[in-house]
């Protein structure tokens, strides 16, 4: 099985965000691999191992973290890794999908995996947009796969712990929510080795225009703790106040 995994860098969710006009202030922003793409990579690696296939990891963006992501993918077992484009940090999901499509269209992949969503996808979900523009079947919110002959058994999660199984004819696109196993760890030494191996390929792709028809006109940080009583002081003060709240609620 020939597998492609599509990965994106997203602003680190634990960082303090600042707004600059109608976008984040990206000057000092740290990026991390979209957590669902990490699961897509893991599911891809498991399938590669089961089927004796190959896996190519693709990632978008200029941030230093993107190369780190791809080196990590190689260290974990990807056969090759490709960095696409140069200035794609702030483009929309349609433009991201178009970039991925131009990179994978002629690759003959049986399976294309990406994360089910990313925190900045305001104009649609990349995995599904890729499927639609390649006219391939897809299933999203996938929490496990097992390979069959010319098809895959795929488990999709609905909600409240309810799941359903599907048989999907390949080639197909899957939006991965959670891999069967937690994403594997890899030693820093292996990542360094991957860095030095020169296996990472940079692919020059013309940056597509944002074409989604959706324009962000303003951004703001909702007032955190608006309406909440914020407890001041150290942990002793906090624990004392929480005990009072528990007593007032009649549960203590």
């Amino acid at each position: 099985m020939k597998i492609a995994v599509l990965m994106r860098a997203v602003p680190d969710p634990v960082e303090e965000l600042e707004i600059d006009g109608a976008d984040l202030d990206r000057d000092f922003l740290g990026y991390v691999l979209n957590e669902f793409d990490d699961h897509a990579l893991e599911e891809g690696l498991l399938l590669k191992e089961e089927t004796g296939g190959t896996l190519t990891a693709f990632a978008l963006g200029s941030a230093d973290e993107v190369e780190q992501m791809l080196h990590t993918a190689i260290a974990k077992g990807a056969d090759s890794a490709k960095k696409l484009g140069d200035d794609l940090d702030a483009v929309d999901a349609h433009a991201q999908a178009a970039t991925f499509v131009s990179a994978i269209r002629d690759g003959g992949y049986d399976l294309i995996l990406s994360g089910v969503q990313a925190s900045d996808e305001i104009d649609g979900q990349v995995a599904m947009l890729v499927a639609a523009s390649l006219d391939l079947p897809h299933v999203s919110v996938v929490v496990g796969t097992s390979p069959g002959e010319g098809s895959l058994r795929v488990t999709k999660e609905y909600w409240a712990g309810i799941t359903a199984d599907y048989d999907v004819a390949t080639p197909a696109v899957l939006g991965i929510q959670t891999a069967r196993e937690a994403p594997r760890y890899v030693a820093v030494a292996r990542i360094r080795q991957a860095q030095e191996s020169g296996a990472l390929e940079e692919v020059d792709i013309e940056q597509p225009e944002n074409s989604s028809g959706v324009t962000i006109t303003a951004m703001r940080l909702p007032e955190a703790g608006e309406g909440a009583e914020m407890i001041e002081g150290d942990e002793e003060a906090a624990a004392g106040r929480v005990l009072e709240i528990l007593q007032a609620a009649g549960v203590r």
Partner: protein
Amino acid sequence: MSNDILVYVEHLNGEVTDATYELLATARALAAQTGGGVDAAAIGAGVSALTASLGGADRVLVAETDALGAFNPQGHAAAFSELVAAREPALVLVPYTSIGMEIGNQVAVANGLPLVSYCLSVDASSGLSATCQLYSGKVEADVTVDGDRAVFAMLAGSASADDGRSGGAGAAETVDVTIPDLAVSFVEIHEPEGGDVDITAGEVLVAIGRGIESEDNIEEAQELADALGAPLAASRPIIDQGWLPKTRQVGKSGLTVKPKVYLALGISGAPEHLEGMRDSATIIAVNSDPQAPIFGVAHYGWVGDIFDFIPELTDRLDG
């Protein structure tokens, strides 16, 4: 094109989901702005029976078909796309759920319409605009949409389900849809197994998130839960790591809880988590990030380290 609003009816096991009723409430307000009506499209086996609770719509388009199983990402989307192409509604509403997101993306692409995701609210009074939640709930964005038609994927809680449910039975109109050759086939559904602990029954819940950092630290949180006589619940990443069973998960793909007190420790408050706990009577949040969206729904908050807070509170409860 018409001025109508078309709502995708999400259903499972013969029941319309709350998310659909929320869409109907939103659609009613939007129809007043566009001067059109509210249509709801129900696709699948046995959907005629669903019209009994779909009076929130002016018309229910009923597409009976046995070919698709409970839900077929390809088949349901193709059928709905066909209805959107034929009716040309101004606005299409889908829920931002496991089912709705598949429908929304495909219908938008198939009909050449813009799609707006993560929507909190939509306005159609002059052009189309929406307010959306980005970056796991940390940012609110206002957007405008080119043209006069679009698909909107609405976050859970964007309207009152009760408002959308209040209309009695809907007027049914039978429609035919073509199901294409399917590359995706539905096999079977799995209901969750019951667990050791019922987190929906607890008066107090202690819930931990990725801030707990490692499996070894779960014990410390369990001690606090024990001191409170409360079950230990968690956000999704803790379950995905295998640190607690699936039956302890709160949120969109887990359980919805409404305890008297919900103590959220090291949980950021992503929309998918909030969906499962925002109606708790009292929410107390501890998080080291003052911007964490959990503080947006909390009644009480402390910005600090859970590893300072947990033993301190446990001691006081035991002492």
